[in-house]
């Protein structure tokens, strides 16, 4: 059987997609699980929460992020493209000045960072931002 150039390129692309794509697919299920665990399947609004992350992060091993959701009880941060999407959950106590926090996180590659806040009234709001990473974290 003669393989055309197009077939060879197509096969190569499919193989590459399978190789690089699989962790992403596995992660997508984990991501949904993590979100459902936090929200209990409730729908999320999108106003009242701010997620500040760089558009381009040079080093995926330490990406500065900031979340701010006035009136939130807890804020969960997720990284959609990491092997394990959980990043951190901030629970705010009565002595908190603002329902906001900053930290530094690891990102395995270009992906969305997601912040979901649980408000005092039991509703949920979500913010999402894409971050491009030049050097991957997570040992990559």
């Amino acid at each position, binding site marked *: 059987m003669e393989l055309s150039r197009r077939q060879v390129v197509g096969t190569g692309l499919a193989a590459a997609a399978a190789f690089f794509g699989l962790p992403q697919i596995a992660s997508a299920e984990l991501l949904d699980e993590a979100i459902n665990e936090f929200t209990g399947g409730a729908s999320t609004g999108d106003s009242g929460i701010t997620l500040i992350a760089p558009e381009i992060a040079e080093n995926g091993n330490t990406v500065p992020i900031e979340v701010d959701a006035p009136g939130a009880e807890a804020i969960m941060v997720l990284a959609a493209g990491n092997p394990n999407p959980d990043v951190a959950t901030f629970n705010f106590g009565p002595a908190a*000045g603002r329902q906001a926090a900053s930290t530094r996180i690891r990102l395995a590659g270009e992906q969305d960072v997601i912040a979901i806040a649980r408000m005092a009234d039991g509703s949920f709001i979500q913010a999402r931002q894409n971050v491009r990473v030049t050097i991957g974290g997570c040992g990559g």
Partner: protein
Amino acid sequence: MADNVTPRVRVPREASAGESVSVRTLISHPMESGQRRNGDGNLIPRQIINRFTCDFNGENVIDVTLEPAIATNPYFQFDAVVDATGTFQFTWYDDDGSVYEETADITVA
């Protein structure tokens, strides 16, 4: 216990009553994610700080659950309301059961 774990915190020395002050914390810790492999191809076991709390005069300010995706030397910045002179108590909980503690005093004028 991981080696050379040093907590560092920064809070203003004084504040006015009811003021919201910015608190910064850093603890030197490798935060081994459990995803990396050593030279022989074996996974290096996970060892991270999994929880961080800050209390002011016994009242909770923030309680953070950390996952392996938090960078080496976990850093947090947040705000706390101070209504009286008192002490901030910071606590970090390691995977291996170690607990690291630090305090900082603030004077309310």
